[in-house]
């Protein structure tokens, strides 16, 4: 098992270097000079332009710029934002807990509903439940996030007044951020009603962000379950007279979980991509909106630093998924 883990970890290093190169090049191949974008309609004199080029280090050869960046990254320095003049690292960690909190809730929502939905659909293959659940999943998967979010806001916040429109907590609650996770911080604050407010603020963004992964997980669980339910050992179990709940829940689901876990791992990327829109609509102070704004402003350090951090997180989650395969299926770790 340890050897298997080390092999997976070894593959991490070249991928990491590749990601630093891609994140560095990505923003540079886009047309548009960050200095000119910064100056806007006002423009700037040639002399001032040259001054800025030197200040931002653009006068150096690209390879040298990349090398400086790479050395910085290895020393934990992602540079400073051109716009806010603050270290990218600080900005990322100020915003990331909000994205993480929302993503975890969305994933719990997606798995908690998606797995049972998939199992129920598979067990009732071709029947009403199956058709209803899979049609709903297809609709969920096809739903434009922006439209879906506004629809929920207008119905549940605007018309019914059940949930707040946006933000992470009611503005009347004001306490120092300890962990960056609003659910935990609101509990730590000891202020009455703060935790409830944080939960209410999470409901709509969680549903919006979790909808697509929910649909994917439900469909994947159904097809994996169907495949497993057709296997000989399930027929044997049935012939032995085992209770259907035990067959479906223990024997079939455990083996169907491998492709489902793969999908969950890959959904982390989808969640982070979905977070961009979800965060913008719900005024959620996370990294999604921060990255998009930076691309438009050509804020190189933020774009390359943010991309790198997101890539590392996705890689770490997938490393974890690889390890989980090994735990669930001993055949994989022995290979």
């Amino acid at each position, binding site marked *: 098992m340890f050897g298997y883990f080390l092999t997976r970890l070894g593959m991490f290093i070249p991928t990491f270097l590749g990601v630093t190169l891609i994140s560095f090049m990505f923003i540079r191949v*886009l*047309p*548009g*000079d*960050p200095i*000119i*974008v*910064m*100056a*806007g*309609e*006002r*423009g*700037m*004199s040639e002399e*001032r332009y040259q001054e*800025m080029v030197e*200040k931002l280090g653009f006068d150096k050869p690209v390879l040298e710029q990349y090398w400086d960046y790479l050395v910085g990254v290895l020393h934990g320095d992602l540079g*400073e934002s*051109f*716009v*806010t*003049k*603050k270290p990218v690292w600080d*900005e990322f960690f*100020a*915003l990331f807990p*909000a994205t993480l909190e929302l993503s975890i809730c969305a994933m719990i929502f997606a798995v908690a509903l998606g797995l049972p939905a998939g199992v129920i659909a598979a067990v009732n293959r071709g029947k009403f439940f199956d058709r209803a659940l899979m049609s709903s999943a297809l609709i969920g998967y096809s739903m434009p996030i922006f439209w879906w979010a*506004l629809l929920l*806001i*207008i119905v549940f*916040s*605007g018309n019914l*007044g059940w949930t*707040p*429109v*946006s*933000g*992470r907590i009611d*503005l*009347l*609650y*004001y*306490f*120092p*951020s300890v962990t960056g996770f609003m659910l935990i911080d609101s509990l730590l*604050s*000891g*202020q009455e009603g703060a935790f409830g407010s944080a939960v209410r603020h999470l409901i709509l963004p969680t549903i919006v962000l979790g909808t697509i992964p929910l649909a994917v997980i439900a469909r994947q669980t159904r097809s994996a379950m169907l495949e497993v339910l057709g296997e000989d050992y399930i027929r044997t179990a049935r012939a032995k007279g085992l209770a259907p709940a035990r067959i479906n829940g223990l024997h079939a689901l455990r083996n169907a979980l491998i492709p489902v876990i793969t999908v969950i791992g890959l959904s982390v990327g989808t969640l982070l991509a979905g977070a961009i829109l979800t965060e*913008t*609509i*719900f*005024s959620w*102070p*996370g990294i999604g*909106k*921060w990255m998009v*704004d930076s691309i438009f402003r*050509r804020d190189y350090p933020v774009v390359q630093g943010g991309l790198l951090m997101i890539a590392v997180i996705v890689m770490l989650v997938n490393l974890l998924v690889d390890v989980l395969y090994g735990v669930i299926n001993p055949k994989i770790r022995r290979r």
Partner: protein
Amino acid sequence: MKLKFLAATAAIALSSAAAQANTLVYCSEGSPEGFDPALFTAGTTFDASSHPIYNRLLEFETGTTNVIPGLAESVEAGDNGLEYTFKLRQGVKFHSNDEFTPTRDFNADDVIFSFMRQKDDSHPYNQVSGGTWEYFKGMGMPDLVESIEKVDDYTVKFTLSKPEAPFVANMAMDFASILSAEYADAMMEAGTPEKLNTAPIGTGPFSFLAYQKDAVIRYAQNADYWKDPADVENLIFAITPDASVRYQKLKAGECHIMPYPNPADIQAMQDDADINMMEQEGLNVGYLAYNTTMAPFDNPNVRKALNMAIDKNAIIDVVFQGSGQVAKNPIPPTMWGYNDAITDDAYDPEAAKAMLEAEGVSDLSMKVWAMPVQRPYNPNARRMAELIQADFAKVGVDVEIVSYEWGEYLSRSKDLDRDGAVLLGWTGDNGDPDNFLAVLLGCDGREASNRAQWCHEPFEDLILKAKQSTDQAERTKLYEDAQVIFKEQAPWATIAHSVVYMPMSNKVQGYKVHPLGGHIFYGVSVE
């Protein structure tokens, strides 16, 4: 440590209770870049920094572009127009925070500090927070201001390198906000000079409490303010980037005021009895600039004929969806010096066609450049270009629409040999006509902000004379005359000024829409 945390929590809980009582919540459209206004250029940043937290020597009167005394009680211009002496107000207190309590009132040292850090490359604060001093340098201040002298504790003298009347208006701009030199020294000594930008101390009507990035900014009323204290005890900016969501928050009572509504929502807001919709023309202009150095656009009659072919009312309806007004002059009507006596070129395709024929122009093909970004002065440049294309087709002119990435667009449109006419615009900085006429149409602006590459001596003489005069009546007359020449020569087709809408709850009293674009909450109360 634990005690300190509990004490802080208790204090905050108390302020939460108070917040309910007298709080104004503003659903702002974005996050500030920081809180030191001299470091940045975005209006969103100024809303969160210079307006609530700071003052300037001179101020723009809220709701107008008039310059009034601020931290300076008076300013006197020397006879040669080169010296400006500011008499400072006494007894003005700076805010305090956990790490700093001022030991003295505002004085000349703070003025010298606030400007010299921007001007002097060797100043200890010049490089702090990556200081590029974009506005100070963009307004040409390093060359214009020769020296700043402390005459005594409450008198400061600025000496200029050349007479320039707009200098007075520049002193009311956001970059000219006055910071505490004492706080700067304390932070430098503590090794945290960047706190000037992250934990700001000013003299303004609100003191800064806290900022959670991309989420919320909190301010408290400055009880020691040198004017009457603000009407609300707490001011909160709830950062809400999406306009539809801002509207929903306003309806749900989660905020009291919001900027920049979706044009499509304006009618519903006006019909809502709980919402008070304020509106005013923005201090901006959207235009189509011909390249006046290239044939046939070097001929004013050709330019005028093309201007007559553009149906501007259709553009206001389609592109602005009503939230704009037709522009006839290169400066907006809210600005002093606006010449309302000028009549716009009438929309007349037949006459335009005949005029082009008379000038020997036939089978003309040209490019129209459409910006790739949205701006208040042009919410949809592509659509505007398409309408112009259709209008020009009616007079026999074939238009190809081109567009580039924004940085490329700004850069290429400056070229002297640029092919075609460019859609662009401008939002005023200091309410002075010089900021439009000299920057956008002066000879020095060619291959830079003067996209028409236009240099016309009679016009240039007038704006140079106006720049050097300190007599307001004389300046007004000169700018009015300059607009007459502009209209005859037609280097641009002036298209539109936007209309700024500001929806707010009926509970809000005393808000004034500011023509310079800022959102100012001093003097605003909530029932």
